[in-house]
């Protein structure tokens, strides 16, 4: 069996999958509810394996997301950096939280993430005053148990939690 601490296949494929999910076309009605897959997966790996996936990974993923979505170069990067900094700073505490409390923490982190994106948009004068923008934060927190469950199962089939 693969050793979960040295396996690179799962993290990298999960990052690529998250990037794909972030830009895959959705019907207009549900597009606003698309969870922020990349920050979610990044938070998972920052919690699960903080010595391997940290700020540099967050920066690279953020820049990839900027390039993919045509945003200002660095916009998603800085939002991801803040989220991952928080995850790394408190990873031992977050890891022992019960699942609902973990989802709450993720909710707060995604809200900070979305706020930073919103703030940069405001500073450079891209007007996006829509309230729906915050819907993705809620759906993100709701799918967190799913992300956690699936990645945990695949990473360590015998152990339950991060």
């Amino acid at each position, binding site marked *: 069996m693969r050793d979960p601490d040295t396996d690179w296949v799962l993290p990298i494929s999960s990052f*690529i999958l998250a*990037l*794909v999910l972030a*830009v*895959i*076309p*959705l019907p*207009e009605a549900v*597009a*606003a509810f*698309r969870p922020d897959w990349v920050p979610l997966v990044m938070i998972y790996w920052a919690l699960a394996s*903080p010595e391997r996936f*940290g*700020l*540099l990974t*967050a*920066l690279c993923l*953020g*820049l*990839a997301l*900027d*390039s*993919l*979505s*045509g*945003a*200002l*170069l*660095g*916009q998603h*990067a*800085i939002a991801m*950096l*803040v989220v991952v*900094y928080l995850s*790394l*700073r*408190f*990873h*031992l*505490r977050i890891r022992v939280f019960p699942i609902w409390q973990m989802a709450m923490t993720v909710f707060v982190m995604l809200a900070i993430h979305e706020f930073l994106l919103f703030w*940069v948009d405001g500073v*450079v004068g*891209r*007007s*996006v005053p*829509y309230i729906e*923008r915050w819907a993705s934060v809620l759906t993100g927190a709701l799918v967190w148990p799913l992300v956690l469950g699936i990645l945990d199962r695949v990473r360590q089939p015998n152990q339950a939690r991060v």
Partner: protein
Amino acid sequence: MNVPGGTGGGRAATSLGARFLLLSVVSLALMVLDHRDDHLSRLRQAFSVLVYPIQMSVNLPFKTWQWASTSLADRAALLSENAELKAEQLSYNVRLQRMAALEAENTRLRAILDSSARVGDRVLVAQILAVDLDPYRQRFWINRGLGDGVFVGQALLDANGVAGQIVRVEAFTSEAVLISDADHAVPVSVNRNGLRTIVVGTGDSGRLSLPYLTNSADIVPGDLLVSSGLGGVFPSGYPVGWVLDVHRRPGQSFAEVIAEPAAELDRDREVLLVWTPEDIEQKEEPTSLAEAEQ
């Protein structure tokens, strides 16, 4: 309670904080440089090459579906479609015959008036990539880039009218903005009487707004708006939209005019990139100069 996990005292935490600050400064600097000018176009192009496989892999299922639906369509459907297309082509051909005569007449009249003749524009078909950008902005990627000679500010048309323009060119792809984007405006003239105005996007792909028409302006629902060619981005004479609704409010100095885009902005899969004769001239000028010197 102190830093959990920071068993080596404050050192691990400090270095984490320091690295966080450093990388944040890096991304802030990137944002400032990217926003100010085109300093980062090289870097952006490098990144776009890296993420190109992701865009392709997202686009692939949609492309496969298109391919499958055409190659697996049954014979009867194909035959009926073929018959329809033939009938359509016939009607176009009839119109085209008149068009040729009209064009010749137009050239003659222009020669009499001593103004320059309008030459045809060069076009290139581009596919829209099935990749979602920010849902709040009317933007998309197309599969043509630097190698195809695409340039920033180039006009995009679809079969029915003006669709948008190019805002960023990468190595293999380009980002385009639709005329319905809230930050986009097209100079137009009313086809019926030549009244010039500006069409502004609303953020909704089915509506355009004309905010700069006074209450007394001669505009009625059903008027065709064509690009006026002012501003130098869009070639003149292409349909932009039809006026849907004119709302004149006595208390206000400007009328509220809503138009519907001529292009099928939300249903397009293919668009045309346009090079006007001036664009082609500009590009070919250096070579012809060099030839002249020789």
